[in-house]
């Protein structure tokens, strides 16, 4: 829905004449906001332009400011002008007022002509940004920025592959998105606005690869055909990231705004093409041993535009694990892509209330269409300058989550290891005497390259509750069995270990034992494991392998299976008890050969 405004504001926006006011605020070096529209009784902003686009989730901002009020005036926004009073903080330290990284907020107001002066509370907060770039070679100086929240998502990365999201029993997708935002950004824990749950659970647990947070959460949102969009929340009076389903089946009575030929200056674009139509969309999903495929298609669309094909192939460990989930993914794309998006763009006087996904009604104009037309908002851009107060509204097709973004959907579930920051109870066996370093993970043949290299396995154990406890076993497995684990260690070189306990040793074939007499101290287990899969095909690709009569051989299965385990060693006297639920083993990739 369009931004909530008062009836009076709606009337103003529908009138033939209204006033537009602009205020730009920038964060100073100590975190306070400075009103540039009244700084030293002077209006420094000359223009502001910003835009939102469905397939470009990070809105951009350009602001032009007067650079100075004359040479030697002592009032300049040039960041490196030490003669400017603006560039000093309260303790007289030099601190540029305008500098990259600072917050920059844009407010506007629309009002009836000749009305009373507007107060600050009557301004609408239309853009919450952060500065990326400042150019002041000429006046007006030019500032470029992006919306604060979405820029954080784009700039921050999931920096480690040691975090696990979802669970074997399934975590709500909105919870997983919120957890990722919480772990990897400094945004408010309440930044995510979800009006209703899509009812989709992320299962099994997965470890996202290192990637921008925006990519990780967008991929999640695409799983259910929803999108993430920065919006102003009138109720919370702050900017939120809204996780929502577009109203793909909106009816005419649900239009949030009507434009007639008396409203817009010009029709910039009116076209239709079938380039981005997709009407046959198979979704392949499921475990390697039980791959399934469902096909989402629209025969009506195929009759009109021919068969237009695209395919989603999910990894075996993707959260898309059921037909229902695969349907939601494929159907979301089908609904957004089955009809050619008629592209329509109009230019109107400044109209700030539009939001992406709004359902807009267009009255017939006698030239481009003779009946009422209904479109979803695809893009909106604004420009407020001294002599230009305009918005460009681009609509296409029905409200959609994405358009071209669907065509580059990366799939979900490219997982290497399920590393251990998950709930311990997920990994403690029923005997509560062992802990898995990573849930057993299947490595598809096309991912084997990723396991090459050196890995550190690390676990810290609490002091045992019984002094009889003496040793730990560390086992890792690699092979092709997806059920019963192959015995022993295969294709593994244990090249180093240490322990903070008094003694340690390695023994056994396939089972490494660390004897530790901990007393009242904690024990630390550190092992370095090197994987170098031995078999490659004619093209040089690694192929799965297994063990036969003590010898590594090429496997027929298309995946390998990796497993680590640490457990109390009964054969070496390790019969004591330990609080396994407090053990947090981790695995980290140290080097890639």
């Amino acid at each position: 829905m369009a931004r909530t405004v008062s009836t009076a504001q709606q009337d103003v926006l529908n009138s033939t004449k209204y006033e537009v006011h602009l205020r730009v605020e920038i964060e100073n070096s100590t975190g306070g906001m400075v009103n540039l529209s009244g700084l030293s009784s002077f209006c420094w902003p000359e223009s502001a332009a910003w835009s939102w686009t469905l397939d470009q989730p990070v809105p951009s901002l350009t602001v032009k400011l007067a650079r100075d009020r004359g040479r030697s005036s002592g009032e300049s926004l040039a960041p490196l002008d030490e003669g400017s009073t603006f560039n000093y903080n309260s303790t007289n330290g030099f601190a540029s007022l305008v500098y990259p990284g600072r917050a920059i907020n844009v407010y506007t107001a629309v009002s009836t002509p000749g009305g009373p002066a507007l107060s600050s509370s009557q301004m609408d907060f239309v853009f919450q940004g952060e500065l990326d770039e400042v150019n002041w070679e000429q006046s007006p100086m030019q500032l470029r920025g992006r919306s604060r929240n979405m820029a954080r998502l784009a700039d921050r990365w999931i920096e480690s592959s040691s975090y696990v999201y979802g669970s074997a029993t399934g975590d709500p997708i909105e919870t997983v998105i919120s957890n990722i935002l919480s772990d990897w950004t400094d945004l408010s824990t309440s930044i995510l606005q979800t009006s209703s749950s899509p009812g989709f659970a992320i299962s099994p647990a997965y470890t996202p690869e290192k990637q921008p947070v925006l990519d990780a959460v967008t991929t999640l949102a695409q799983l259910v055909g929803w999108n993430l969009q920065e919006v102003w929340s009138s109720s919370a009076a702050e900017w939120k990231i809204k996780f929502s389903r577009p109203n793909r089946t909106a009816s005419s009575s649900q239009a949030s705004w009507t434009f007639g030929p008396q409203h817009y200056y010009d029709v910039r674009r009116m076209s239709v093409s079938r380039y981005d139509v997709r009407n046959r969309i198979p979704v392949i999903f499921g475990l390697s041993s039980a791959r399934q495929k469902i096909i989402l298609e629209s025969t009506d669309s195929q009759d009109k535009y021919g068969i237009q094909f695209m395919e989603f192939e999910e990894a075996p460990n993707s959260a898309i694990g059921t037909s229902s989930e695969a349907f939601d993914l494929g159907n979301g794309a089908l609904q957004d892509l089955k009809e050619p998006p008629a592209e329509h763009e109009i230019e109107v006087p400044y109209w700030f209330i539009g939001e992406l996904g709004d359902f807009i009604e267009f009255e017939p104009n006698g030239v481009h269409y003779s009946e009422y037309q209904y479109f979803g908002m695809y893009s909106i851009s604004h420009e407020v300058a001294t002599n230009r107060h305009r918005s460009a509204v681009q609509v296409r097709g029905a409200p959609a989550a994405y358009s071209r973004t669907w065509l580059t959907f990366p799939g979900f579930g490219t997982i290497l290891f399920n590393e251990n920051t998950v709930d311990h109870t997920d990994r403690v066996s029923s005997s509560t005497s062992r802990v898995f370093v990573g849930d057993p993970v299947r490595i598809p043949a096309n991912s084997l390259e990723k396991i090459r290299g050196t890995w550190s396995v690390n676990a810290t154990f609490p002091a045992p509750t019984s002094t009889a406890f003496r040793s730990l076993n560390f086992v890792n497995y690699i092979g092709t069995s997806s059920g019963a684990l192959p015995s022993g260690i295969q294709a593994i070189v244990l090249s180093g270990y240490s322990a903070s306990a008094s003694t340690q040793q390695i023994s056994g074939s396939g089972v490494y034992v660390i004897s530790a007499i901990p007393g009242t101290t904690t024990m630390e287990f550190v092992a370095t494991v090197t994987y170098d899969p031995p078999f490659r095909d004619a093209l040089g690709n690694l192929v799965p392998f297994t063990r036969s009569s003590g010898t590594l051989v090429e496997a027929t299965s298309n995946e390998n299976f990796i497993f680590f385990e640490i457990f109390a060693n009964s054969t070496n006297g390790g019969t004591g008890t330990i609080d396994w639920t407090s053990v947090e083993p981790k695995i980290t990739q140290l080097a890639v050969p």
Partner: protein
Amino acid sequence: MAFLTISTAAFAMPVALNSVRADVIEIGDQGRTFNGNLRQTIRRRAMKWSGKTTPLTLADASSYEAKLHSSTQPITAAGDLLSTASTGGVADVFARIVSKEYVASSTALRVVLNWELETPGSS
């Protein structure tokens, strides 16, 4: 009253005959909509004057240029010129020298300054 003074009437500008032009700058936007209606967001109008000085000595030209450029903008302008534009004869203006013309005379080199005065506007 002088025709044009700047900075609290202390500096009388020698304005060349027939050189002054006044333009109206609208603060806001307007256009015809698709069905012919006029829609606008104009909320005020600013003025812009441009003109030339009479030929000045190099020293006088430097003095005027420094006065116009080194002051904190906007500066105060007054005179009959501004009285013709509903400003009450006094207005805050942004002043600048946009170009110089060098004129040879029988006795020495002279300079003509092309200037602009513009009342502030805001978006």
